[in-house]
């Protein structure tokens, strides 16, 4: 596992084709809504979040990262009965953070991706928790063991998702 600091000139920036940019997030949101009905344990995963992190770290553009995260989050919000914006704000922050970190760190190896996913999963949950309780007034309980366990599960899945994303990303 190697998380190395890189200069702006060293990092490689990737782009995604328009079909991949549109279809992959849509597929992630769709699977997130559909799979838990058949496999309830899948609720522990957040596939749209993994796609957000994957896109952001590959593009390494904070603007693109935050916009991608925001749109995916809003799409996810629209399928819930909660006010639209809870996931949108959380994923905007994650998209911005992941792409900013992608500029600084080499996140091409599996170990780095594993740790980054755990970190941003927790960030995502913290932001969501704060907004849901502070702004919307939802009753929520915070459980560190649950969040960390979910973070690890998502990180494992994230490594696989990032490997799939590697296949469709194009070098600029």
């Amino acid at each position, binding site marked *: 596992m190697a998380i190395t600091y890189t200069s702006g000139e060293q990092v490689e920036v990737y782009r995604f084709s328009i079909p991949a940019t549109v279809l992959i997030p849509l597929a992630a949101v*769709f699977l997130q809504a559909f799979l838990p*009905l058949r496999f309830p344990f899948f609720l522990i995963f957040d596939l749209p979040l993994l796609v957000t992190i994957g896109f952001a770290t590959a593009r390494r553009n904070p*603007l693109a990262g935050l916009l991608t995260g925001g749109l995916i989050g809003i799409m996810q919000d629209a399928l819930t*009965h909660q006010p*639209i914006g809870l996931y949108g*704000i959380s994923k905007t*922050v994650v998209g911005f953070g992941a792409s900013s970190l992608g500029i600084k760190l080499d996140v091409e190896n599996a170990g780095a991706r594993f740790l980054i996913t755990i970190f941003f999963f927790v960030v995502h949950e913290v932001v969501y928790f704060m*907004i849901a309780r502070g702004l919307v007034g939802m*009753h929520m309980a915070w459980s560190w063991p649950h969040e960390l366990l979910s973070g690890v599960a998502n990180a494992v899945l994230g490594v696989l998702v990032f490997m799939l994303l590697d296949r469709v990303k194009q070098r600029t």
Partner: protein
Amino acid sequence: MESVLGRYRNLIVLVGVLFAQVLGLAIQVKRTTPSEPTRLIRIWAVGAVAPLEKALVWTQSSTSNIWHNYFYLRGVRAENRALKAQIERMSLERVRISQDADQARRLQALLGFKEQFISLTLAAQVIGGSGSELSRSVFIDKGSRDGVKPDMAVITADGIVGKVLHVYHATSEVLLINDQSSGVGAILDQTRLQGILNGTPAGELVLGRVMSDETVPAGEMVLTSGGDGIFPKGLPIGKVSKVTPGSDLFLNIHVRPAADLSRLEEVLVVTKIDERQAEPAQTGAARAIDILAARLPGVPSKPENTEKAASAATATAPGSVGAKTPAATGAPKTTHAATPDADAQSKPKATPHDNGNGAPAARSVPNPESPAGDSSGPPSAKKATASSLSPKPVKATVDPKPQPDSPDTPH
């Protein structure tokens, strides 16, 4: 200034995007009212995802149907036999239950009670969920074009599921009862304690507002109380799994839902709930007349009426249970009434007063000379016929002492 904007461009955009979303969120929270129209973004999102989900569910169910209906038929014959036996058992039980229901209806009529009952349901398939642990809702494949409206109850054969929250053209979103924003009026079956059933963030069901000095045993059934105006009274919700002391003076009664909320596939949307008062015609007074009419010797009528009555009896129930009237066969009357055969054959003769259990036909036919047997007779006679289809007189007509002077009783 330009250099500052350029240097912090990303951060400024981030703050701008976040601010816009927070603003949008705040507006939504303030405007959350039942009459608010659905947002366009929700319609777009649901419109984009629902067809994919429908297609996938359709493919899955078609494949499953082909496999189970045409190939995998192992054990079907044995299952068929067992089901037939079960039907026979249940037919017998239904007769007993219908008599109990009849008695309850009479009592309700006496007390002027109004009863609610589900008169129309719509079967729907679950095609998707919210995908979030904090939003427990599902999407069904029926929408406004099918007559679904907000706040309709959604149930399964096992128990209640939730209520319709948002309705789109071809889909609807159903808020499950274990969502934290859900609330259902509930009553405990045995102790008759009432409370409000809420979901928790963890997706559990907790019955609150029950005083802590009450005793609630684990395993007790929890039913809908009807107080919420959405679910009719008496539908199963679940069973008490655990009782813990709650805040203030109330208990926290944990309820295990009767319906498996995590694996929903087909549900029923209650599209119509009727309210009716038990009719006086179903009371004991009307039946007393029937009983008397059945027990007293028939009044001799005109020959043409007799013929008409006889032909009507033959025409309406060819080979029916009437042919096996207790008097004719010498068997006890109630035994025939309870058989599944009698049930099936008597159904076409059901009247508004008939509860459809089929038992009555066994005693509706026998006396061609009696006015009750004449379908073309005066209204009072017709009423007597209709009333005689109710199950109660069965017991009344079982008379161990045959009446020697009765013209319709062969000896």
